[in-house]
């Protein structure tokens, strides 16, 4: 009763559920004669996808690779660095943490038009939006993680008379990893959404957000769904990748141990 389900079931069941939804969707579109300008059938979307792989690839490169991933990488690095700096100063921690917590809860997508105004219409402004969006979750989670090592573990380091850097590298960062990955998982999904939303406020003539808004205006809803599929796919892969690395890095954490 407590044994883990087989690989097959783990993949088959969600896949089956997805296929079921697609089937119902197809039947509904055909049965109720829903115009393709409102909701195209899955088959139509698949056909569009297959016919437009070149455009989808260009958009993917622009939005995911250039906008989202660059922003994600910069934002994560900045968040980590800031957390470590803030952690060193109790004064900063006391003053900045409440502010950072507050900002982390704000609807940061709202800054998209400002970033487009500041950083131009190409991918740099999208990356900037992503940087700001992921910076705070990473900062807050890392700071929490740096507190995660127990008093005893830290006292142990003190009995060795370890330096700050030694304690950081050998104790506090490893102990913080589960928290950092928590922040990373949140950031991975935020990054795509941020990059796409920002394209609504100005972009070159490529990119997933550009394509989606343009194709809605052109009644190319099938293309919109093809882009949605690309986005969901890249988001899922990104998330899965983070989860995989997490499994490898925090293998020691009880939540990752199996059996």
């Amino acid at each position, binding site marked *: 009763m407590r044994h883990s389900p087989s690989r097959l079931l783990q993949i088959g069941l969600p896949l089956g559920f997805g296929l079921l939804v697609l089937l119902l969707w197809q039947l509904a579109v055909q049965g109720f004669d829903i115009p393709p300008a409102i909701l195209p059938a899955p088959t139509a979307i698949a056909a569009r996808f297959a016919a437009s792989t070149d455009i989808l690839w260009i958009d993917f490169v622009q939005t995911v690779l250039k906008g989202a991933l660059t922003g994600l990488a910069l934002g994560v690095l900045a968040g980590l660095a800031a957390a470590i700096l803030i952690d060193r100063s109790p004064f900063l921690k006391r003053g900045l943490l409440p502010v950072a917590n507050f900002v982390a809860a704000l609807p940061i997508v709202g800054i998209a038009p400002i970033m487009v105004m500041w950083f131009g219409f190409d991918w740099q402004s999208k990356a900037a939006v992503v940087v700001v969006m992921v910076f705070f979750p990473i900062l807050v989670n890392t700071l929490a993680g740096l507190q995660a090592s127990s008093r*005893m*573990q830290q006292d142990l380091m003190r009995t060795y008379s370890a330096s700050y850097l030694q304690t950081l590298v*050998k104790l506090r960062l490893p102990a913080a990893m589960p928290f950092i990955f928590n922040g990373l998982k949140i950031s991975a999904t935020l990054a795509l959404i941020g990059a796409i939303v920002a394209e609504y406020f100005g972009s070159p003539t490529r990119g997933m957000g550009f394509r989606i808004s343009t194709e809605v205006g052109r009644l190319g809803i099938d293309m919109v769904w093809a882009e949605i599929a690309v986005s969901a796919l890249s988001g899922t892969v990104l998330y899965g990748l983070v989860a995989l690395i997490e499994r490898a890095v925090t293998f020691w954490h009880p939540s990752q141990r199996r059996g």
Partner: protein
Amino acid sequence: MTAAPVIEAQNLDLTFQTSDGPVHALKDVSLAIGKGEFVSFIGPSGCGKTTFLRCIAALEQPTGGSLTVNGVSPEEARRARAYGYVFQAAGLYPWRTIAKNIKLPLEIMGFSREEQDRRVKDVLQLVDLEGFGGKYPWQLSGGMQQRASIARALAFDADILLMDEPFGALDEIVRDHLNEQLLALWARTGKTIGFVTHSIPEAVYLSTKIVVMSPRPGRITDVIDSPFPPERPLDIRDTPEFIAIAQRVREGLRAGHGDD
């Protein structure tokens, strides 16, 4: 066997400021521990055993009195890496293997790679854990983890060993076994050992000196010398002499104990 005091506390006071008002964790504690002594601390929960050990290790700052370790302040002694500390829970880092856990202090103190490997091998043997160096802590039983943490404290060969209820979580048999080994180690190396325990037989069996403490405020109520020779078979515990000392400790304890 008793030499110049290695640890000397005089009228030591420590008051914690908490939100419920001050807690008098140590009051007027005076104690001298000579080189090579094995001193046990026993007393009801909250009587300040841990606090006293932490003061010695410079993990806590006394609010009054004086305390010297090797003639210098605890803080200086800590910087000089004068002690190994074994906490109540094993406190191994779960992301390091047993061997890497034992290497931790060696890395920090800058031992060479070969020296590290050699010492790890030695202490693993000492605590009967050969062959487990590559395992992660959670793959070992509680007793094995505790032994690993003792090995970690032994690896860098500090003169003073401070142990805070190291065997609290173990069953009696394992405990007996580790007691024997600890005793052997002490006899061989001549380390000075401070040892906190809740078990009366353990305290009597291991120590040259038993310090009985009492809470609210935390203070020393009795210091009992244990006359047994360094080599002690387990069955001295059934001798009338042993039982008498145990009885004296038990009485001292019961006096200091409240209603629960």
